[in-house]
């Protein structure tokens, strides 16, 4: 495990006391974001997102299978994340650990609970055959804030995905049926200061983390608090406000790429 020097932590906190961040950003400012779609030919949909130096690639694969018994006319959505050793000297090979699982589940809820994918339109034969949508998140370069990079890449991949009906002899290919998505923004807290879009340095000293997903109406659609520190109600309100503002900007950027 890479060791973070204590004096580096102290320096970042000292900067924060003066309203500064180690890379010169404002507390609620995101790093430069790049979104590219259709990066993997074999996938039914794919996207690459870079937030600063963090890089994530998401691929959407689809297959025909059985529905869940409690929802016989809905398609199935499943999300998996891999913190592959490629992305960081601290990621180990092996089955997904708690961090990867939490990442996958948070992204999954952001997509599922907000009903971005209209799974009721993915039924082929009720009770027998439905479309299964696989969202696979591949972290390529870890430099902080995997949650937002993974969410954004998942959305960009979904919005450029095609249902491969032809390959399964079920008609012509058509775009995946989708609704307006919520956008997630992640913040971390250290030394009583809260900053948005944490860089690696900031994440390494973070005491608590909060991800908030908001929609076009300004409503909250998902939240997740992580790490073993705490947030005050006031801090949470401020994070929600900043998430709404940044969510709007990220949504505009996403819409431009997916051609809305």
């Amino acid at each position, binding site marked *: 495990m890479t060791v973070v020097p204590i004096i580096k932590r102290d320096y970042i906190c000292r900067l924060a006391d003066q309203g500064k961040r180690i890379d010169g950003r404002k507390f609620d400012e995101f790093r430069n974001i790049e979104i590219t779609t259709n990066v993997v030919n074999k996938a039914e949909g794919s996207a690459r997102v870079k937030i600063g*130096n963090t890089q994530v690639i998401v691929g959407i694969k689809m*297959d025909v299978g059985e529905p869940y018994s409690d929802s016989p006319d809905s398609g199935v959505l499943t999300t*998996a994340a891999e913190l592959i050793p*490629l992305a960081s000297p601290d990621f180990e090979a092996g089955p997904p650990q708690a961090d990867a699982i939490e990442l996958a589940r948070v992204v999954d809820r952001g997509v599922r609970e907000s009903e971005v994918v209209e799974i009721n339109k993915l039924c082929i034969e009720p009770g027998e055959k439905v479309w299964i949508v696989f969202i*696979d998140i591949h972290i*390529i370069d870890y430099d902080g804030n995997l949650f937002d990079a993974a969410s954004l890449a998942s959305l960009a991949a979904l919005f450029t995905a095609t249902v491969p009906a032809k390959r399964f002899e079920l008609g012509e290919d058509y775009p995946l049926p989708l609704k307006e998505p919520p956008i997630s923004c992640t913040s971390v807290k250290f030394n009583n200061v809260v900053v948005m879009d944490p860089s690696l340095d900031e994440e390494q000293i973070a005491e608590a983390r909060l991800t908030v997903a908001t929609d076009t109406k300004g409503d909250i659609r998902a939240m997740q608090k992580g790490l073993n520190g705490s947030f005050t109600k006031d801090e949470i309100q401020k994070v929600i406000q900043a998430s709404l503002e940044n969510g709007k900007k990220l949504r505009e950027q996403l819409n431009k790429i997916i051609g809305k």
Partner: protein
Amino acid sequence: MKSDMVLIDDKGKRLDGRGFEDLRDIKIEAGVLHRADGSCYLEWGGNKVFVAVYGPREAIPRHIQNPLRAIVNARYNMAAFSVEDRKRPGPDRRSREISKVISEALEKVVLTEQFPRAAIDVNIEVLDAEAGTRCAGLTAAGVALADAGIPMTDIPVACATGKINGHVVLDLGKEEDNFGEADLPIAISPRTKEVLLLQMDGHLTLDEFNKAFDLAIKGCLSISELQKKAILEKYKTVLEVE
């Protein structure tokens, strides 16, 4: 039957228009990842591969350490979305075997005695697969190792040849790999032409093998020039003022 499929048209061209000795398009970029000590992104036909090198660093757990030299630990992995039918995440037996033969190929050229008890981890991720991923992976690994400043006697390079419709051809494409009669991936140290990796499956006469072998070496040498070009391209600005 495998050899029933027509893979060569009456003008002697392959399905994708290539001649018998033509390589698919290859694009190589060195130093593309921020966290890795050395990295490479490579596109080869429809293949897309990322390689990240970490090390030399302490080999953990301690019982795998070699007191005399570094161990080269290559890990070949395919993304779930890299193939037509989604692949379950995690290493399968094929990935484990490929990881092993690539590790062994790299160990021959890396000057491992300089780093006792250390590990040099080479992570190969295939994001888009279209026949020849192990050659693409090893070729990219060579560039990533050089990028990381790892001492080597040579930059390893790999290429495959095969037999389709009775003819020996260079760099099998997807249908050729699936429906051809033989597949021969080879990796060499381009300076000395020593063979570091060699696998073959299918059916070749001795004559055909010699032809395929020589053609693969020829392919490797062309690709070796591309590797070196990519490395020098990345660092040429080091000598210039912006």
